[in-house]
């Protein structure tokens, strides 16, 4: 087995980053210089067909230097932190900047300031190595073997040192951990899925998640085929996140200003059901809040959609200045919530439904029409017919063709926000939702 105590070279710490940044800043001749650090030690144990297929551990440190002369900007990066390499990366950034055209949107780096201090690194995740990941993978595989089911999934953990510094006094440094678990259980042709992500490896709840996926797989045995059409749907949090993520990605202010955004003309107007509110909650212990962003801006609590009304856009610093936005809102820790009365669990939504499709997750979600944010994607790993308050059958997977801007206005009932993690999104807190008239445009063969 894996020997204990074989530590990797020490991660870049706060003072080491300060030393590296000072070195770069002293050597740079630019008007402005920004140094950014991303040093990550990560590992993933991956399993399929109930055995380990991939078991990896990797360390990558990257230092990125941006230099500007009179609004001409160049960026260079390196994974080599030796003195010669640092001189080289400064030289490359300067050379690039001098040859670049002047950027009319150039702004000097944000001023130095204090940043919120958040518990972004958990010691139990820092301490986790290949042996712990293997132990967790074995736990999930073992549970599935007891049920005579095949499984595939991952256990991963990482520690990152992240920093940003500039010649004007800007300095921020943070250690961040990330732990993830997901698995797909296969019962013959049927599948069930569950996933978790947290700063702490101890919060992955391997057994609970595995049992959820086993339950879905076992329930998906005999498939009924339903015709495409408009259905009431119960979207589990992962499915809601699959739609909401596209909203988050298309809120940029520049596209809004140019009229090439689904939100053009909608700032200050209703975009969701009036009971829905979207916020950034960086202090929430179940979200991946950070102290500062990659641009050197603080991450603070902010409200983007309040009781259905769009309140904020995603600003780059230039557009924010043009709009007179002093504090640029960020969105590292999204939470979509709804006013009461909510129900506690998804099962309670099921009980409320006369006839609905229960969707565990969406897959391969893509834009169909960027003007109204019509999306398409497939249901995946547990799609069921609900009748008279009960799950009565598993159904073949549907393709949907729907806009979240429409769906989130067809809200019938909802739960409290719950953790949502999918392979295509980050981590969010969102409610499960009962939504009427959701458009399924076609059906697949399984």
């Amino acid at each position, binding site marked *: *087995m894996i020997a204990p105590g*074989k530590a*990797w070279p020490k991660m870049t710490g706060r003072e080491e980053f300060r030393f590296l940044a000072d070195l770069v800043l002293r050597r740079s001749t630019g008007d402005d210089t920004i140094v950014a650090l991303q040093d990550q030690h*990560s590992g*993933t144990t*991956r399993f*399929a*067909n109930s*055995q*380990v*297929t*991939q*078991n*990896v*551990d*990797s*360390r*990558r440190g*990257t230092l990125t230097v941006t230099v500007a002369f009179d609004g001409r900007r*160049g*960026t*260079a*990066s390196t*994974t*080599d932190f030796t003195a010669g390499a640092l001189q080289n990366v400064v030289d*490359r*950034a300067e050379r*690039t900047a001098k*040859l670049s*055209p002047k*950027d*009319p949107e150039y702004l000097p780096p944000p001023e130095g300031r204090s940043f919120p201090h958040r518990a972004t690194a958990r010691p139990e995740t820092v301490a986790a190595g*290949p042996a712990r990941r293997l132990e967790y*993978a074995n736990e999930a*595989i073992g549970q599935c073997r007891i049920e005579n089911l*095949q499984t*595939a999934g*991952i256990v991963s953990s990482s520690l990152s040192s992240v920093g940003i510094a500039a010649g004007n006094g800007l300095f921020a440094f943070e250690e961040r951990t990330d732990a993830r678990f997901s698995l*797909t259980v*296969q019962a013959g042709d049927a*599948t069930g*899925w569950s996933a978790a992500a947290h700063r702490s490896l101890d919060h992955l709840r391997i057994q609970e998640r595995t049992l959820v996926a086993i339950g879905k797989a076992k329930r998906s045995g005999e498939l009924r085929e339903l015709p495409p059409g408009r259905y009431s749907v119960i979207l589990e949090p992962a499915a809601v996140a699959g739609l909401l993520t596209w909203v988050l990605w298309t809120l940029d202010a520049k596209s809004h200003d*140019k*009229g*090439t955004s689904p939100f053009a003309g909608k700032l200050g107007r209703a975009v969701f059901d009036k009971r829905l509110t979207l916020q950034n909650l960086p202090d929430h212990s179940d979200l991946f809040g950070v102290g500062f962003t990659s641009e050197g801006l603080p991450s603070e609590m902010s409200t983007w959609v309040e009781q259905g009304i769009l309140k904020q856009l995603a600003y780059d610093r230039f557009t924010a200045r043009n709009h007179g936005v002093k504090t640029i809102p960020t969105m590292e820790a999204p939470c979509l919530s709804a006013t009461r009365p909510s129900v506690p669990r998804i099962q309670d939504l099921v009980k409320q439904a006369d006839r609905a499709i229960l969707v565990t997750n969406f897959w*391969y979600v*893509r834009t*169909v029409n*960027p*003007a109204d944010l*019509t999306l*398409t994607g*497939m249901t*995946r790993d547990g799609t069921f017919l609900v009748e008279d308050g009960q799950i009565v059958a598993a159904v073949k997977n549907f*393709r949907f*063709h729907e806009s979240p801007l429409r769906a989130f206005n067809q809200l019938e009932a909802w739960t409290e926000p719950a953790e949502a993690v999918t*392979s295509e999104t980050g981590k969010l807190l969102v409610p499960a939702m009962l939504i009427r008239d959701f458009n399924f445009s076609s059906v*697949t*063969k*399984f």
Partner: protein
Amino acid sequence: MSTSDWAELAELALNRIRAAGADYGDIRVQNSTIQTIEGEDRRIASIRDAEDKGFGIRVLYHGGWGFAASSILSLEEVPRVADLAVDIARGSASLAREKVILVEEPVHRDRVVTAHRIDPFAVSLEQKSALLCEVMDYVQRQSEVVRSRASLWARRDRKLFMSSEGSQLDFDLLAVQGEFSATAKHDGRFASRSFSTPHLRTGYELIEDAQLLAEAPRVAAQAVEKVKAPAVQPGRYDLVLDGEHLSLTMHESCGHPSELDRALGYEANYAGTSFLTPDKRGTFRYGSPLVNLVADNTEPETLAATGYDDDGVACQKWDIVREGVFVGYCTNRETAARIGETRSRGSNRADGWGTVPMVRIANIGLEPGGESLEDLISDVKRGIYIEGHGSYSIDQRRYNFQFGGDAFWLIEDGKRTHMLRDVIYHGITPDFWRSCDGVADRAHRRRFGFITCGKGQPGQSGWMTHAASPARFRRVDVIKG
């Protein structure tokens, strides 16, 4: 550090792996240089010059895999990482019920260098930035065009692969690409039209030959025409798809299902599995008899034509679909053994030194037929001609797909008439390919590459080129996007 120093470090790692009693081991030392220039709305928004150096060590110990990697390339770090890879492999082996076996591959000692006329890194940034600014200026001269984007990208990978079996492969590979787009607004709507060179393993001559400036007015005009075009009326249409468009259709509906690791369940938790299961090989009718889909990792300039893959297996050419019947997979040394094949197809690739190689789609292309594009269109009473890429999505077993495109023209009574907008077609993969009744000849063949093919956990980006001539598909279901 020179490549001879790399070889010494690699030998150091391999000696430790051998001494630990491993079945197999390999090391990849790599230094990648990536230059990206991005323009937006007439300005250069960013110029980035990234250098990414490190090494990854893969070990097979008693049938279990271990992999460790580091960006610290030093005499102290290499043996430490080698030992860790062995330890991790021991852990995997302790849980292995079915041991990994690698099929045989001859030992190779070779050097692979991308042939090119103009080194993309030797072309001045001023020249490249000026080109992009000029293209964006041209595009935005067209009234009703409100946004423009343009970019150039180049990458150089210097890589050393050495294995415990004695293979030693030295790579110096280039890849280049350029593109731009125009977004037009009209009557509260907006629509984009784009132009893109393929990503190819060649030099800056790809950009020069593409004549981006000459294309700019047409692209801008078509963006305006597209946004003003009538929306498609849903229904069944015959489709004529151009080569660039087909590259994505082939990638999603043929490429991914032909990856053997997916068919064997390795990707069940993320990218998905495949409807092309091993029992279907040699008998399953995937398409019409006109459909010949060939994997060719030997065609010069294409992305997967790297001489050897990351198993150290020589690149090859083979059939995936022959006369409509599914006959072959993309494999690596591990998965080939699982279906009784005696040699890997050489499709095992990692996206850098820090990631472990996995089965990747090869350069799968549609073999040309005998017609011209005009022949294909002239035999259509009511249809749509589609160019370029748009929306795309497919289920996790690769049956139910849906594609848009970049530009659409209505075909009426054998003639391409006017543009349409919001065209989306969908179907079931084998039904769609069985409806193919015409493929244009080699003169119309175009290559298009992808460098962002997502797969694996942690996610990696795969590179491959898909070539096709335009092809015709009958009575496909079209909806309004």
